[in-house]
């Protein structure tokens, strides 16, 4: 019984992040460029973009990134920040 409980606990702990990652679609740079920002969906969209950011895990120093990653990181961050200065409360 103990073993079964431990096995279930391990599978839940071990699988949850993988499931969350699997659910997040990694947008291409082109998709990111045409991302349909919508203030009404701010929370959901920011969460999605932050999840991509977490998965991509770019170095915080843009000088260390290659051209594509730098462009992707720029678009991702500027889109996230857009919700803060672009959406009126």
């Amino acid at each position: 019984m103990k073993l079964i409980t431990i096995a279930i606990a391990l599978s839940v702990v071990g699988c949850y992040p993988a499931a969350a990652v699997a659910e997040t679609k990694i947008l291409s740079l082109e998709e990111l460029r045409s991302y349909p920002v919508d203030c009404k969906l701010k929370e959901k969209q920011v969460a999605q973009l932050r999840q991509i950011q977490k998965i991509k895990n770019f170095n915080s120093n843009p000088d260390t990134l290659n051209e594509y990653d730098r462009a992707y990181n720029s678009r991702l961050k500027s889109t996230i920040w857009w919700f803060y200065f672009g959406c009126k409360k």
Partner: protein
Amino acid sequence: MIKQSILISLLLVNQIAVANCNVRSASVLNGQNQVGEVTDFKQTIVPGKCTVQFRLNVNGQWHTVEETQEDRWTKESALCRDAIRYGKEKLLASIGGKFTTEAITVCREGDANTERLSKGFEPVKLKIGDKILESEAGKSKIENYFTHKNQTCRMFTERYTFKGNQEIYNGVICQNDRIDTNWTVVDRW
């Protein structure tokens, strides 16, 4: 939608402009010191000239910095920004630390006849977590202030010319508290 795309596009980094530049070498200071916040900040502006005075905590000790930048062709806000940076750099140079020799660039940009002479140091680039004065972070095309985590924030844009390319960085600074002169770099790209 188009407006939103334009706004986002303005924040993008990968804009590289080639300028006519000569590369020289100079000694620069590597960031080995613990640089704290600026306090008692004062600035005096007259046309074509900005003098800044402030106290800065480095490695736990307070130092007074005074620096003047003059250039009749440069905006006073940019002169003040340079004065703060060069004042900090001179202080750090006087305190000591590890020096390396790096290339610096003297440029004549595009058709402009004004030669932008280097003032001895390659500008120190901002990084996330830096505590700075608001005027140290260049203006962004997105000028409005906004609130993030109960702090007043704004976008900034930095431009550096290096090896003939102009590098542009964007980011966000937030005021440490409502009456504080110090701001923190919270993001940069």
